[in-house]
């Protein structure tokens, strides 16, 4: 028995050693394979008819509706036109997407095209050299038709690293029937908005639906107030960049006080702090809230046949109301370009990747498809087809009528840490009921420690 167990132990040891050496050999062999693979691929990208597989990484897992469908349609179009190209799409939803993109960046994974969020997140990728610089001159002219100023959150040190896919801007969607039936005036000033809120509340209708759990809407709402007060789109961005201070500035103080009024007069729905995007949207689409503070990407609501018809006929768009005595106009639009695409530096098929990227971003592909399907408002000039819903027309008017745009949402213009801290400051303000001064102090701290 003793002998027996000893020999068994030896056998085990030997197997363990063997396993380790096999594993390490495996690793080494694999490395060689990779190198060999990349060099042959590098040699073959020149010939156009060679089979190529491109890797696209995207944050749109749902391929059957909305922007995911639009993205899929562009890809299908491209494959039809270029049968030698295969596109391998990997999709993850927002948070897992961001995490995995970091992992890809850290290991320099050979993706070809990736979805990126402009601002802080893209900046990290740029610092790491993971995304390619683009030549803005190539994207001028009628093939692309980018709107002026849309590169702002994709440009670092005057160099362009990605192209925006959408124009995002904050508006107030409202249910016209609820206003009419209750004899409430559609607000054009902030005081009227709060007054309308009180009247709706008295009738037992939720005035404005808010996705409080996601927190970012509060920051946008606050930025809107700052712009309405000052008419200055850059003030809040400067404060985030530490060129100005949140504390001790009368405009910020006033804006924070106005925000406190919205909180204290219960403008937002019951338990808005627990409502995520879907919850706040459903409250509005089910006709139980009169207004919804949200972005332009919800243009598809008016044509979504899953929503009640009564709602679809009554949904309208309202510009964020002016503030009495403020210098801002209601045409100062809080617009930015959040999402976009970039080319990856470590791509194994740089030429094919560029070809696909350019195809996707041309005005008759992504831009046209998202507009036609109502999935978003593109960052490029789009033709009105005449088939637009009333909601889409109103949204177009808001965008084309804008006299100034922000270019970037303040929350995304700092580091990811700033975003986190600032969101928590707003969370504290709305859930914990801290004072306007406290909110500004927290924002100042967030800007300083980012």
């Amino acid at each position, binding site marked *: 028995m003793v002998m027996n167990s000893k020999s068994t132990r030896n056998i085990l040891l030997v197997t363990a050693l063997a396993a380790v050496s096999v*594993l390490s050999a495996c690793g080494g062999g*694999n490395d060689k394979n990779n190198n060999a693979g990349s060099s042959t691929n590098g040699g073959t990208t020149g010939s156009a008819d060679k089979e190529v597989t491109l890797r696209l990484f995207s944050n749109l*897992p749902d391929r059957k509706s909305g922007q995911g469908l639009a993205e899929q349609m562009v890809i299908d179009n491209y494959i039809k036109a270029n049968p030698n190209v295969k596109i391998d799409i990997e999709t993850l939803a927002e948070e897992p997407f961001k995490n995995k993109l970091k*992992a890809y960046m*850290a290991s320099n994974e050979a993706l070809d095209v990736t979805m990126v969020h402009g601002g802080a997140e893209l900046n990290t990728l740029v610092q790491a050299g993971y995304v390619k610089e683009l030549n803005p001159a190539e994207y001028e002219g009628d093939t692309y038709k980018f709107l002026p100023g849309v590169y702002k959150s994709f440009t670092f040190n005057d160099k362009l690293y990605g192209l925006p896919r959408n124009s995002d801007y904050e508006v107030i969607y409202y249910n016209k029937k609820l206003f009419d039936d209750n004899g409430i005036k559609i607000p054009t000033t902030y005081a009227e908005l709060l007054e309308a809120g009180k009247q709706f509340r008295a009738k037992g209708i939720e005035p404005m639906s808010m996705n409080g759990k996601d927190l970012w809407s509060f920051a946008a709402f606050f930025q809107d107030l700052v712009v309405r007060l000052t008419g200055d789109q850059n003030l809040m961005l400067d404060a985030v960049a530490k060129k100005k201070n949140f504390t001790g500035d009368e405009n910020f103080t006033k804006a924070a006080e106005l925000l406190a009024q919205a909180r204290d007069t219960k403008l937002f729905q019951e338990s808005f702090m627990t409502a995520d995007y879907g919850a706040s949207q459903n409250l509005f689409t089910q006709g139980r809230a009169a207004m919804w503070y949200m972005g332009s990407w*919800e243009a598809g609501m008016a044509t979504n046949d*899953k929503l009640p018809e009564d709602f679809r006929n009554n949904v309208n768009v309202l510009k964020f109301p002016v503030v009495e005595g403020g210098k801002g106009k209601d045409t100062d639009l809080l617009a930015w370009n959040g999402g976009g695409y970039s080319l990856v530096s470590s791509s194994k098929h740089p030429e094919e990747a560029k070809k696909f990227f350019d195809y996707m971003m041309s005005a008759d592909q992504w831009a046209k498809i998202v507009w036609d399907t109502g999935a978003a408002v593109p960052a490029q000039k789009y033709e009105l087809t005449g088939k637009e819903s009333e909601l889409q027309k109103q949204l177009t008017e808001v965008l084309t009528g804008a006299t100034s745009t922000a270019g970037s949402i303040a929350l995304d213009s700092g580091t990811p840490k700033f975003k986190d801290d600032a969101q928590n400051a707003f969370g504290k303000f709305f859930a914990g009921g801290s004072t306007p001064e406290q909110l500004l102090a927290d924002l100042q701290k967030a800007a300083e420690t980012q």
Partner: protein
Amino acid sequence: MTKSTKTILWVFFLIVALVQLFPLIWLVDFSFLSSNEFYSSSVLKWPSDPQWQNYINAWVDGKFLRYFINSAFVTSVTILLTVILSLTLGYAFTRMQWKLRSVFFTIILLGIMIPIHATLLPNFAIFKALGLTNSYLGLILPYTAVSVPLGTFILTGFMRSIPRAMEESAVVDGANIYRIVFQIIAPLTAPALVTVIVTTFLNCWNEFIMASTFLSKDALKTLPFSVMNFAGQYSSDYGSQFAVMVLTSIPAIVIYAIFNEQITKGVTAGAVKG
């Protein structure tokens, strides 16, 4: 016990059972609603127009079958490895005398305390270098590594309560070490093994973060990805997601129903001495 106290007790148990079952009822109920009916004021809603489409979506667009097969494969291999390793380790720690035994026991148990998500990025880098990303092994290895410490902990506690006389008589009868471990000890520790199997199963079945980081190929993805297939950038198709979750939870419920008695035994059995 008088009749009235008995009734009160029954009512109490019924309420507890209902509270326990409520999430499940809620899940099934809402899987028949369309996304726009979610978050209404009523807690449960009778589906006046049941959305069977949700289940069709889950099956087709959620690629349920393929992901299910992947999940089943990864989970069963992980369970098998975990059981074999925990059992043999447990035996080595309780019955065998060797020099660094307590040191290694401590090291293995330390594994319980390491949060798996902290190991995510280093693991990704290592696996990529070894060519293990985009393979079943890339999930099976970390899942096993995470499950073995707890399994070993449960099994050592349990084994200490088994009298040594059993093995002594087995040795007298000429059984070698493998026979002792797998034919004498394994059946005796069955309740603890079932506990290990079930906890490992639940952990692997629901794990998403590692899978999402290590896998890019659609052909290898596991069930939690199925839910993800219905998530848009801002809003999601909740109805179909709920349908996926109902389908995903069925195997878990079946396993729990089968092993129910063993689990309760296993959790407490080693407790006295462990």
